[in-house]
């Protein structure tokens, strides 16, 4: 206790210098927290956007369908798979999809299109497809009076074919059995805008797409939404063990290019943060060394009256740690409301940004233990580290030489 008291009082011996050091430490911490919050928030938003847009946390395919899609690489018992996934408590929801390239026709024009058959109700609870509808309404499985299924089409196709709600859309593709697939669908909704990734997509009810493509109840993809964002890799591994005949990939693999870019960017960000912390700690090191130099005589006396060298080194570490801790408390008090504002309100963008068909109007951060805890541990760790050479210097002081100094 007395040592702690000594450390505390020593910090306030040179108030102005300690205050400046504390300011630089707190400033460095706030900068780190803000940067982490921005980085984590941006990536978290981006991950949420594409996970909810289409990827999900986990995807299941047959073999290498994800890399080399072929219409015949199908999951043939989606019903059984759905029952297994529905029983899994880690899974929030899942959806079934089929994919096929097609040519879309109107009375006057044609356009290439990507047909996606979706299990409508499951899709609604797994992805943001329903939220991306800009005109019309989410379709159902029912046939209309003339025996046609409904379709939701990307704004790009609607524009190319010059069609709108209620118009007929003709699709021609190749069936899984090698036959020519062709059918008429009624446009019930427009999805996204002309710049959206979905602009050339035609969404059909799953059963309609399976009939159209002669797929007889099979699907190409199962997309899974987990309850816990951070469990994708673990749950993917668990499911892979349960489904050895299928290929189960977490989003980090499905979106590997994005994931690797994100990791590289985060490492760059960490390097930048490290550089800032390094600059801050050059100042802190200077303060600690100055403090030791000024108190050479005192350390000599402490050693003379029986303080062990290690105790003196510990005292320096305690002082540095205490100064860093007080600075961090101040840093947390300042950064907490700042990050809370940044997370819950965010910075309004000059122009709203289209992310996967969803308009993002604010740049937001992340408020998490990681954002506050990581820089805290880093700064405390670094502070204790740089106190070691200063502490060793103090511990090695010869009492006779120290007491000769002023």
């Amino acid at each position, binding site marked *: 206790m007395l040592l702690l008291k*000594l450390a505390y009082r020593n910090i306030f011996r040179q108030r102005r210098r300690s205050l400046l050091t504390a300011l630089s430490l707190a400033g460095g911490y706030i900068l780190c927290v803000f940067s982490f919050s921005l980085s984590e928030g941006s990536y978290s938003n981006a991950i949420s956007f594409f996970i909810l847009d289409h990827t999900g946390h986990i995807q299941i395919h047959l073999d290498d369908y994800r890399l080399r899609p072929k219409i015949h690489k199908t999951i043939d018992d989606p019903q059984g798979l759905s029952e297994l996934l529905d029983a899994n408590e880690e899974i929030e929801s899942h959806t079934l999809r089929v994919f096929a390239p097609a040519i879309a026709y109107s009375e006057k024009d044609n356009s290439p299109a990507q047909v996606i058959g979706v299990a409508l109700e499951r899709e609604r609870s797994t992805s943001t497809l329903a939220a991306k509808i800009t005109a019309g309404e989410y379709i159902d499985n029912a046939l209309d009076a003339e025996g046609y299924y409904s379709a939701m089409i990307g704004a790009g196709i609607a524009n190319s074919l010059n069609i709108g709600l209620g118009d007929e859309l003709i699709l021609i593709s190749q069936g899984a059995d090698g036959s020519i697939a062709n059918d008429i669908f009624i446009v019930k909704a427009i999805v996204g805008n002309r710049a959206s990734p979905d602009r050339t997509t035609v969404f059909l009810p799953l059963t309609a797409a399976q009939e159209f493509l002669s797929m007889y109840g099979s699907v190409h993809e199962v997309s899974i939404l987990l309850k816990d964002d951070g469990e994708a890799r673990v749950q993917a591994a668990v499911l892979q063990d349960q489904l050895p005949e299928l290929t189960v990939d977490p989003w980090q693999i499905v979106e590997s290019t994005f994931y690797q870019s994100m990791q590289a960017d985060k490492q760059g960000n960490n390097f930048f943060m490290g550089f800032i912390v390094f600059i801050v700690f050059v100042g802190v090191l200077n303060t600690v060394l100055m403090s030791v130099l000024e108190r050479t005589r005192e350390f000599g006396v402490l050693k*003379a009256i029986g303080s062990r060298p290690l105790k003196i080194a510990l005292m320096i570490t305690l002082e540095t740690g205490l100064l860093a801790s007080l600075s961090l408390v101040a840093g947390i008090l300042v950064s907490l409301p700042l990050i809370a504002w940044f997370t819950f309100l965010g910075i309004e963008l000059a122009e709203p940004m289209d992310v996967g068909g969803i308009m993002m109007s604010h740049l937001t951060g992340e408020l998490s233990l990681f954002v506050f805890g990581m820089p805290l541990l880093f700064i405390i760790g670094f502070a204790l580290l740089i106190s070691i050479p200063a502490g060793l210097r103090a511990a090695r002081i010869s*009492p006779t030489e120290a*007491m000769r100094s002023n």
Partner: protein
Amino acid sequence: MSGVISTTDVCRYFGDDEETMVKAVDRVSIEIVRGEFATIVGPSGSGKTTLLHLLGGLDNPTSGSVELSGTNIAAMSGAVLSDFRRDHIGFIFQSYNLIPVFSAEENIEYIMLLQGVEASERKRRVTDMLQQVGLEGLGDRRPNKLSGGQQQRVAVARAMVSHPEIILADEPTANLDSKTGIALLDLMKELNENHNMTFVFSTHDEKIMNRASRLIHLHDGEVDLDERK
């Protein structure tokens, strides 16, 4: 009377070159017995402070041995030597050398904290020491709020509170005015007589010499004369 500390042919030379080597202490063999109020005297540069540092284990001799209660402290180093100093030797320095951020009480208490003395016992001893050195009511003051004499009294209390076998005082009155110096010496003499505490001074202050029971005269690092009164 039993010997508390003794040196045998202890030498402390500075420098390696034979021509420029300074023999601060040269082949000194002395024995200080329990309860002595001994003084090492001599002109400036005679080696008084160096000898005192060797006696206290603050410096290592070039050769020879320094034994405190039968233990050769010249062979000790690091934490072992620190612990030995803490438990067996009290120091009083010319310029008081109190810890400026501690109060008088805390300065006295610190050494007991190093010894692991319990809080209640520390408090009792601090109160007792403050009373003995005449600083009752001033325990919460920091050194900069005490006069030179009061600071040196705190230093005396700090040196004594751990019940060391010997107290080494390096020119303790040098920074004090005559009246304060005499008062401090009287205090130390009283403690010496009442508690049979062993004191060794290095000084050229006649006031100390007059009160000393033994004068060890040093000249050029060698004992010139060792007289008991």
